[in-house]
Structure formats: C-alpha cells, structure tokens
C-alpha cells in the first residue's frame, strides 16, 4: 500500500495520455506508463466442481454460461418461428395449430429473441467473457454479484418456460404486451401466462442490473495501466454504452410490468380505462393504455441499441483484424456509439405514430429519428472504408462481417422509411415492419454473433472451428435469411397486416400465396442451417486444429494472456501494460503487420505510428 501511495504522488505531473517524456528535465522515458493506482484484485478461486463450474465467480465461465443458456432459449425461439411459418406458408399442414397457439408462439418468439437471446448473449455472454480480458483486468470487479446475475437470468428463463405449462398457456398478447388486451379474456394466456411473463421480466431486469453494474464499473475502474478510454477496443465501447442504456431503459420495463401485474391482480387501473366486455362494464376506469406504450417503448427503443451497439463494436474489431488494417476513424466510431446511445432515448415514440398519442409528437420524433441516421451512416462508411486498401482475409469471420454490412444497411434504410412519420402511416403494422426489424435487429446482429463465435472460439477453446463447415453455415444462413426478409417488404407494400393467423381470401393476400410458401421454406432451411454450427462446435472441440497463441495476429489484450485459453485471473503474475490503441495493423516500418497493445514504443522505434 505504501508503495502505491508513493507512486501516486508522481502521477500528478503526468497526463494520463502521456506516453513519452519523464518529469521535469530528466531524460525522456519512451515507455513510461502511469503506475497503478490500486493494488491487484483478490479473487476467489473455486475448488470444487460446484464452485468452479456451477456457482462460478469467474467472468469467463459466467460468460459461457450466459452464452449457452441464451443459445438454448434462442433455439426454442427458432422452433417457435418454424411453427409460425408452417401456419403462414402451409396452413393445411398445420391443422393442429389454433389461433391461440399461433399468437402464443408469436409472443414467445419475439420476447425470447429480443430479451432472452440477443440481450443476454451480447451483454451477458460476450460482455462477461471479453470486458475483463480486453481492458486487462483479472475479472469483473464484483465477481459474486456477477454469479448472482447469471442465476437470476437462469430463474427468469425457468419462469418464462414454466408459462408453457400453466393453465391457459403462455401469454399471447404480442411481445409488446399491450394492455388492455394482455390482461383481458380474449387474449390467450391472459391469466397465469401474462403474470409469469411479467415476473420473468422483473427477474431478468434485476439480474441484469447486477451484471450491468459490473460491466460499467469494470470498464471505468479496473482498466490496466495505460488502457485509456480512447485506447479501448470498440467491442468494449459498444458493450459499455449498451450497458449504460440498459441501466436507464430497463427500469421502464420493470415498472411497466409491475403496474400491469397490479392491474391484473389487485384491480388497479394504471393502464385500464372504462371497458365494456361481453355487455358488462368492468371494474376499471381512468387508466391510459397509451401510458404503457410510452413505458414499453422508452425501454423498447433503447433495447434495439442495447443489441445493436455491442454488435457495432464487435464487427468493427472483426473487420479491422481480418482486413489487417486499423479501423478507419476510431474517434468518430467512439463518438458515434456514444451519440447513438444518447439519441436513442429521444426517439421511442416513433413506434407509436399511429398509436393515438397526440399527433403533434410525430414532428419531434420523426426529426430525432432521422438525426440518428447520421452517426449510424458514419459507422457504415467507416466499416467499408476500413476494407478499402486493406489486405482482406476472406475467411468465415470476414464473410459474416460482409453479410452483416449488407443486411444492416438494408435494414437501416428501411428504418428511414418507418422513422419518417408520414411514410410510416401506410407501412406500420404491416409485413414491411416485420421485414425491417428482422433484417436490422434479427439477422444483422446474428451475423455479428456468428462472426464473433468463429473469431473467438480459438480463444475460448484453443481450437479453430472448421472453415469448410463455417462457409456452408454462412452461405445458407445469409442467402436464406436474405430471401426470407427481402421479399417480405413487398408484402407490406401490398398492405398485408402483421399478426394475422390467417388471411382468408383477401385480395391482398391471394396474390402472395406463392411468396409465403417460399418464405416458409427458406425459414425452415435457415433454421436447420444453425445446427451446422452446433455440429461444427462439437466436431472442432474433438478434432479441431489447435489454434495456439494469438492465431489471428490480433492486437487487443484478450489474445495476449500468458496461458491460452486464459485461466482464472487471466494474466498470471503481472497485469499487462498498454502502450497503444488496439488497431496498429500494417504500420509502415514495422516488421510484422500488427503491433500488439502491449508492445512498448522502444521496441518499434522506427515505425510511423500515428495514433497511440
């Protein structure tokens, strides 16, 4: 402790960004890095199977636990989507399915994919595994809380799945859970189903808050020496900002769920006006259904970016590493992430243009929504400019990145249609919306997840995934998913409304029967293709090529642990010391085409490094 104190005194003369030059007139020390301010973290090391693998406090294991459980719920969501597509494409083959079933599947598919799959996977999975490694920490700052976070998520999933087995089944109110229908008869699962959904969401938010605090404080407080904020890999920036959003947005969902439960169980009227049902006036009065929509979308829109920002960050790193080129415009990328995050709290009502809220809001929310397109477009430009004059490895990881760019730009541009208030009027509540959000926050983030899995699998397991299987997996997924959602926009132009169990013989639909069958077939194929990945993982774990240290020649810290795959505590005896940003690829004058973040300036004196 006394040593730390002494070191602290010296720091005052140094800016944290300073990389060269000592104090006063002494000889410049090229490799100077500000000393540590706190002593090394003490970790709890598990000894038994239970403490090592089940109730584990190692963020890496917790990340894998999150990943596996999120993937498991994701597969349930996938199966539900198959059932929905069976009904839509081949209703005669889905005779067992009633309208109640269909709406329950729609609801559970939506909620599972957005919250229990994508959010849990990006923040819980990648966040836990990568944050401590990338910022050079030994673990998350509150390992015990982190463990509780995962097990809360586990219970939340159990409660969610339990709703399939209660009387009335799971809620069928649509993933937006709009009252009054969500808690009134006439909607499937309006009894136990909706209550369990609310309880599960509350548990998820509680658990997620524990995890989220960990991510934030780890990034803010536990970075290693030399790891300034503006040297962090964009993956960390994306996850960090998304977590800030989650901390601010999830409470709105929490109170919305709580208030709806009170309306259901205690007969309060937060969201319930006077209602006439089957000739009887119910004992509600004075509440506002639109209030719930405001609460829901105040959560719901940032939620889109809670999924998108980590994806933005991860894809930036993958593109940079595999193009052997620095990410173009790093500072712009950081500010775009932060700016998008901030703006995402001022756009929520663009989901509500035709909800019956005061129509004058439309002007404000259309403007803010289209402003957000500017930083988003800048990110896209910077990704493709990173490819420009790169040395692009056309491996599976890069394919997922390119697939992401195509689907994200496509979905982003249809977002401009829907965000632009009067254009939204004819398109809202049609299949155009379904196509848009699946492209932009279903397929595009999925491309990133897959790219990230192929990229970091060698780090987690020490083995490469099979490239050959990976390419099959990519092309079926990308081409299949694109041919599901690209034509689907045109169903929306015809005017086909969403959430229709059956279209009967509406003139809008009869012209599109063929397309619906085609979309369903593509959906079956894309779903099945995901099992290639599972097969690939099992096969590669057994017989995969050993990856060794830093197999992609990357710069960031997660690849630089003394033991690969990293063990508990990550760094062995000494924490790494960071001298530069994570993107010094192909620096003129350097021997190799990468300079790791831990390489001291004195080791590469004859290079022309522009940014540190």
């Amino acid at each position, binding site marked *: 402790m006394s040593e730390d104190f002494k070191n602290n005194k010296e720091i005052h003369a140094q800016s944290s960004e300073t990389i060269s030059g000592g104090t006063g007139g002494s000889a410049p020390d090229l490799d100077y890095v500000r000393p540590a301010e706190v002593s090394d973290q003490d970790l709890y090391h598990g000894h038994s199977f239970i403490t090592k693998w089940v109730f584990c406090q190692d963020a890496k294991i917790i990340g894998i636990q999150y990943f596996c459980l999120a993937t498991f719920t994701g597969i349930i969501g996938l199966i539900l989507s198959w059932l929905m597509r069976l009904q839509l494409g081949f209703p005669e083959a889905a005779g067992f399915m009633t*309208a109640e079933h269909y*709406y329950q599947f729609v609801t559970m598919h939506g909620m599972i994919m957005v919250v229990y799959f994508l959010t849990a996977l990006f923040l819980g999975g990648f966040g836990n595994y990568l944050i401590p490694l990338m910022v050079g920490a030994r673990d998350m700052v509150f390992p015990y809380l982190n463990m509780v976070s995962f097990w809360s998520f586990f219970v939340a999933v159990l409660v969610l799945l339990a709703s399939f087995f209660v009387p009335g089944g799971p809620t069928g109110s*649509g993933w937006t859970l*709009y009252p009054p*229908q969500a808690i009134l008869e*006439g*909607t499937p699962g309006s009894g136990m189903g909706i209550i369990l959904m609310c309880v599960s969401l509350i548990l998820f938010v509680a658990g997620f808050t524990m995890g989220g605090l960990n991510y934030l404080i780890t990034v803010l407080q536990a970075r290693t020496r030399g790891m300034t904020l503006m040297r962090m890999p964009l993956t960390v920036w994306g996850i960090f900002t998304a977590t800030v959003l989650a901390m601010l947005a999830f409470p709105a969902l929490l109170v919305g769920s709580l208030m709806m439960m009170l309306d259901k169980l205690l007969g309060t009227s937060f969201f319930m*006006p*006077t*209602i*006439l049902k089957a000739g009887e*006036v119910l004992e509600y009065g004075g509440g506002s*259904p639109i209030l719930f929509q405001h609460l829901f979308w105040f959560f719901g829109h940032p939620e889109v970016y809670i999924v998108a920002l980590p994806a933005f960050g991860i894809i930036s790193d993958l593109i940079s590493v595999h*193009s052997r080129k620095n990410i*173009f*415009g790093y*500072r712009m990328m950081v500010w775009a992430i932060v700016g998008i995050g901030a703006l995402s709290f001022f756009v929520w009502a663009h989901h509500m243009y*035709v909800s*019956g809220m005061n129509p*004058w809001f*439309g*002007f404000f929310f*259309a403007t803010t929504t289209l402003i957000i397109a*500017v930083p988003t*477009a*800048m990110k896209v*430009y910077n990704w*493709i*400019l990173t*490819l*420009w*004059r*790169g*040395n*692009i490895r*056309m491996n599976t990881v890069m394919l997922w990145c*390119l697939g992401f760019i*195509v689907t994200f*730009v496509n979905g982003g541009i249809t977002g*401009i249609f829907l965000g*632009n208030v*009067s*254009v939204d*009027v*004819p398109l809202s*509540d049609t299949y155009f919306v379904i196509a848009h959000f699946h492209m932009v926050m279903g397929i595009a983030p999925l491309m990133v997840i897959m790219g990230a899995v192929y990229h970091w699998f060698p780090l987690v397991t020490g083995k490469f995934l099979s490239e050959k299987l990976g390419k099959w997996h990519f092309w079926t997924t990308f081409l299949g998913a*694109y041919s599901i959602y*690209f*034509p689907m926009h045109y169903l929306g*132009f*015809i*005017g086909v*409304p969403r*959430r229709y*169990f059956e279209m009967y013989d509406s003139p809008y639909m009869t012209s599109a029967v063929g397309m619906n069958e085609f979309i369903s077939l593509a959906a079956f194929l894309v779903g099945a293709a995901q099992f290639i990945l599972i097969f690939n993982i099992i096969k590669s774990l057994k017989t995969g090529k050993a990856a060794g240290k830093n197999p992609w020649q990357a710069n960031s810290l997660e690849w630089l642990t003394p033991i690969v795959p990293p063990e508990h505590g990550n760094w062995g005896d000494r924490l790494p010391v960071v001298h530069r940003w994570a993107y010094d690829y*192909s620096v*003129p004058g350097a021997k190799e*085409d990468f300079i790791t973040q831990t390489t001291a300036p004195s080791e590469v004196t004859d290079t022309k490094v*522009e*940014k540190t």
Partner: protein
Amino acid sequence: MHAGIIFFLVILGSVLFHIFTPWYWTDIASNWGSMDDTITLTFWIGGGVFVAVCLFMTYCVFKFSYKEGRKAEYKPEDKKLERILTWATTIGVAALLAPGLIVWNQYVNVPKNAIDVDVMAWQWGWQYRLPGEDGKLGATKIVNINDNNPFGIILEDPYGKDDIMIQSDVINLKNNRPVKILLRSVDVLHNWYVPQFRAKMDAVPGVITYYWFEPNKVGEYEVLCAEYCGVGHYAMRGGVIVQSEQDYEIWLQEQQTFSELIAKQKKIELNETKLAKK
C-alpha cells in the same frame, strides 16, 4: 473471389426484384398519393445508398483480398473525408425528412368540409355512426351502451338525436369528399385500416383518436384491423363502399337515426305493455 461474385449477385438480384416485382402497392383509392411519392423518393435515395455501399464493399472484396506480403494502408483518420460524408448524409437525411413532415402536417390537419364518421370497435367487430342534419355527432359514454342505445349516446345531448346509426360492419362513403374518421373502442386497441386508403390510426379505449382521407375511387374495399386485439384479430374485418354522390344520398336516406330508433323502441315497449295488460 467467389464470395465477391455472390455478394454482387445478391445486390443485382435485389435491384432486379424491385424493378420486376409483381408485388407492389395495392392501387391507391384516396388522396394520400403524397405518401406513395415520399416512399418512392425514399426508395431512390435509400436504395441508391444501399447499392453504392454494397458495391463499394464488393469492389473491396475483389480488389483487396488477402495477398501474402502485401501491406494494407495505414491511415487512422481522414478528417476531410469524414467531414464530407457527414454533411452529405445530413443533407440526404434532411431531403427525406422534409417531405415526410410536410405530408404529416397535412395528415394531422383535417379539412373543414370533412364529414365526421364515428367508428366504434370492439372484440371483434365494427359499427359506424354519421352526423345527422346538424352535421355534428352527439357525445357518447361507454357505460350508456345497451341494446336500446348501441352507441352509448348521451341522451341529453341535442346533437345526438339525429345521428345516423349504421349497425353493420360495412359503411358507405361519398366519393371525393373528405371524411374524418373518429375512432373509439369499448375494450382493447384496434385500428381501422383500408390498404387502398393508405391511412390508419389506432382506436384506443378511453379516448377518441382521428385521421382523415378523401376517397377518390368508386368501389368496394375491405377493412382490416391493424392493431393486435386478441385472438379474433385476424377475423376482424369490415367493408367500405365508396359511392357517387347520388348513390350515397339514396343509401343515406335508408339509414335509421337515433330518434327513430328510440321511437321504434318505445313503440315496441308500448305494444308489449298493451299486450301485458290484455
């Protein structure tokens, strides 16, 4: 290399699909052609950006695929280029936003000569009410709704007496005359939507919402519920018949007003009491 070709074909295929698609707008039958125009504009600008970005990406794949020994360019930032791109995007976005807001301004400002139409929704059906000769709809209350007063009109409201009640899920509208659709719901959210008219708005229990359009093509159209309202959502259909002024007036004469309904009910009640006395 193969990857580049496939990506190129995907982009080309998207463009060709858009040009040759048999699935596009259902023919418009209202004044909201400006919405279609805004969408077409968005297609041109947005589609242009999509094609440009993806072609650039594909070009990079062809041109800069990995070669042993080649070194990538090292250029962390290019302030000038970033500035140009930011401004170009901002201008493009503004060009899209402006017409959007102009059309929205028209959408929220209802023309003075619009006829009010009360659209009442429930799980799962529609009925309609038109103002009588006074041109005004009577005020309503959900708790007033019963068999004798299917719209829940407040009996003391003088405007309500001559209201024309259409207890059917099909309504007739006059061609080339704007209508202000006043939506209300007695139970959950609904949305009265005719694809050919382009316009829509949710019906929310507890408040009255509105939108307007001017039908401009004689014909019959299907009404769809566009806001999920429970298990019968997909079956909640209705109809609109747009008629010339003459046909419309004939139809209108055949409809019953609220006072006629009350009178009829009273007559029935009177007969019943008479019968009971006998």
